[in-house]
């Protein structure tokens, strides 16, 4: 099978350790990747090349586009202001929306970038751009940030998937040129596994089935020397191992105690599960919160959404810190774009990329600061514009990933971030 992978990327025909071989992508008989189960092709060579940082990343993705003017860059007293007030945070001089009272108590951990200036201001293209660092119109299979971090930050000894998406619909680029082994493993917003992941037969029966399948496929492979059969067999074994590791997703008992703090929502449970997953060693988890596309009724819609976001995000930061994980876990709050400063005839705000806000916290980030600024009504960046390249480069830098890492698709080189992209040193602690 032609993987399309070239020097600089992992190639299954390279030498494989048995353990790394067991960490395979589920492939269909035809070889199509259907899920990420880890790093099938983490060869020893690649493992040595890759910088194993021990870093983790949780990305909170506000699907539809959250309004900067109503969250972290309020324009009180200006014509573009809405009905929300600001409140003080635990950092002098930083104020946030009154409906983020819990996150306000963690402002010392936050780096609030108020000067995002991005180019793709519709959902499909914006979701793609803010997940891959590249515009979708290049017609190139770029890799999502989750796949990149999975590649460079995964622990090859872990049974768990390396790139997990919870309820995220904004981008389906997946692993792109990095190959199917880094495809996202998608679960529901609350982090629960699909029902098929819960075997209804005892473990010994499951093991015997696996052995039988292995025997049958080995016999078949002797006569049909093609890799899909081996991959298929390993995928089955990998599945069995995931079954053993699935407890990391099973937070039901602990959730009963945590849900009052996180909010009894799927998003809240997803954030709680994400803490458990990074604790278990998963390098990248993305959680989607849908419903921010407020072309109508922006203010009640944002107030309702913040009532879900605030307790979940704040409790996540608290628990990461409490468990000693925050210093190595980058938490990103982002969207595909922001929303117009001006309010339209439906009481809504529309898509806006010229001056908006993302927030970074935790591992490698110097918290307790705002970075950049929009102008007085929020229509333009006034200070320190941040484009997609700088944003991604900063994230990669904090994760210990070379933001100019080069990979190849065929003979064509592609870099993790476009030429000229540089991390923002002021944000990195």
């Amino acid at each position, binding site marked *: 099978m032609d993987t399309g992978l070239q020097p600089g990327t992992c190639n299954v025909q390279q030498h494989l350790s048995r353990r790394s071989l067991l960490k395979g992508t589920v492939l269909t008989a035809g070889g199509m990747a259907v899920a990420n189960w880890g790093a099938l092709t983490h060869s020893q060579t690649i493992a040595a090349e890759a910088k194993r940082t021990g870093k983790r990343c949780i990305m909170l993705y506000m699907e539809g586009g959250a309004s900067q003017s109503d969250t972290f860059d309020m324009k009180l007293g200006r014509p573009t202001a809405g009905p929300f007030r600001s409140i003080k945070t635990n950092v002098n001089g930083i104020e946030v929306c009154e409906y983020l009272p819990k996150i306000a108590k963690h402002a010392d951990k936050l780096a609030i970038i108020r000067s995002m200036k991005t180019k793709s201001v519709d959902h499909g293209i914006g979701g793609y751009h803010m997940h891959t660092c590249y515009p979708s119109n290049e017609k190139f299979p770029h890799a999502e940030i989750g796949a990149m971090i999975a590649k460079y930050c995964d622990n090859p000894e872990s049974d768990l998937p390396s790139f997990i998406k919870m309820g995220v619909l904004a981008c389906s680029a997946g692993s792109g040129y990095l190959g199917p082994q880094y495809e996202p493993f998608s679960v529901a917003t609350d982090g629960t596994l699909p029902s098929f992941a819960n075997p209804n037969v005892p473990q010994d029966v499951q093991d015997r089935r696996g052995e039988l399948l292995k025997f049958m496929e080995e016999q078949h492979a002797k006569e049909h020397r093609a890799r899909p059969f081996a991959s298929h067999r390993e995928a089955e074994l990998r599945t069995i191992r995931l079954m053993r590791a699935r407890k990391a997703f099973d937070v039901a008992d602990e959730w009963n105690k945590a849900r009052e703090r996180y909010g009894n929502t799927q998003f809240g449970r997803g954030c709680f599960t994400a803490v458990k997953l990074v604790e278990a060693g998963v390098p990248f988890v993305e959680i989607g919160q849908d419903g921010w596309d407020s072309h109508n009724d922006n203010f009640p819609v944002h*107030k309702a959404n913040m009532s879900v976001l605030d307790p979940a995000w704040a409790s996540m930061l608290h628990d990461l810190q409490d468990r000693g994980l925050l210093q190595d876990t980058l938490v990103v709050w982002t969207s595909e774009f922001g929303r117009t400063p*001006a309010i339209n*005839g439906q*009481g809504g705000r529309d898509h806006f990329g010229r001056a908006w806000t993302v927030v970074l916290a935790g591992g490698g980030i110097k918290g307790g600061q705002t970075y950049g600024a929009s102008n007085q009504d929020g229509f333009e960046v006034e200070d320190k514009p941040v484009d997609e390249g700088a944003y991604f480069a900063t994230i990669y830098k904090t994760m210990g990933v070379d933001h100019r890492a080069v990979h190849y698709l065929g003979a064509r080189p592609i870099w993790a971030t476009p030429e000229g992209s540089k991390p923002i040193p002021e944000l990195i602690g």
Partner: protein
Amino acid sequence: MNDFASAKVLHTLPWNSAYITSLAFIGNDQVAAANKKGDILVWNLAVPEGKTPDPVRRLVGHTNEINRILITPDGKTLISASSDHTVKYWDALSDQGEPGSVVLNDGFLPKGVTEKVDKVPPPPAPVEVKVIVQKPIRDLTNHAEWVLGLTQTPDGKTLVTGDDQGVIIVWDLPAGKELRRWQATQWISSLGVSPDGKTVAASQHTPFIRFKQGLEAFVPHFHFWDVESGTSKLDLSKEIPQGMSTVVYSPDGKWLAAAHGNVQTEKDQGKIMLLDPATGKKVRELAGHPVGTNDLAFHPDGKHLFSCGRDQQIKIWNLEDGKLVRDFGKFADRGVWIGAISISPDGRLLAAADRAGQILIYLLTT
């Protein structure tokens, strides 16, 4: 039967400062309007023919959006509910106050304000009008969040308010004293009180753009609450599974009307339900306004219901057969809505506020 065929626009009152959210007639010749900046203006409509009325009073005190206003049945008090967490009483008839002014065009038209627009359009030369500035005569501060629901009994004795924390408060209206409160589960998007004061009909809806799995705690509810005990005596959540923008009893107590549309609806929604106030049973379903019905008003003739919506239309419905009598306005499925309506006590005038900065006064009957 009045078919309102001769209805026509009598006055156009410009007020382009912020969206006008609620209207109320004070007697038959004054109209009050409240907006999202927290201002209330009062116009005297009794002007010589051909002259456009100017506002005469400005009621100042709210510090955030005003969501609802009403006039007590005796016409003496205007009551307002706001996102500044307060309910305020105002002397509706007094002409006393401090001399002041109001700029009628300090807002901006939202038209065209999109990604490609660099800044808020510069305001035109200010149109400043001298007014009497008045302050509230009473503040009710018992709510902790946005007060969205506001209604009263026809005898003027009971006031009911509801907020987005799900708190419903019943007040002795003349005294401004809280009598009892109870806790619902979600935002009180709108409520009405039965003419006998015994039942509160309330729509609960937390305005997520759409209901999603995982938000089961936020499923919309509609209940009849017993005012004495503060308990639910009828759960109509299955019959009315959406958020209502307006819930209003007809003054004669024959009808309870509920309009779908406190947030944007699908194009085939925004319907108006006419319920039996005793049983909660749906008697009629009116087509309403696609993408959302914003406000309702029963005509004093007891035979007609007026509605307005996000389709930029005002519609008149025959209560007996549920048929559309006529409509005003220009249909559009997205644009500047008609956000609020009010009918004068004598049934002669209709006030309608759009979101493009004007209030239209219709003469309904000659």
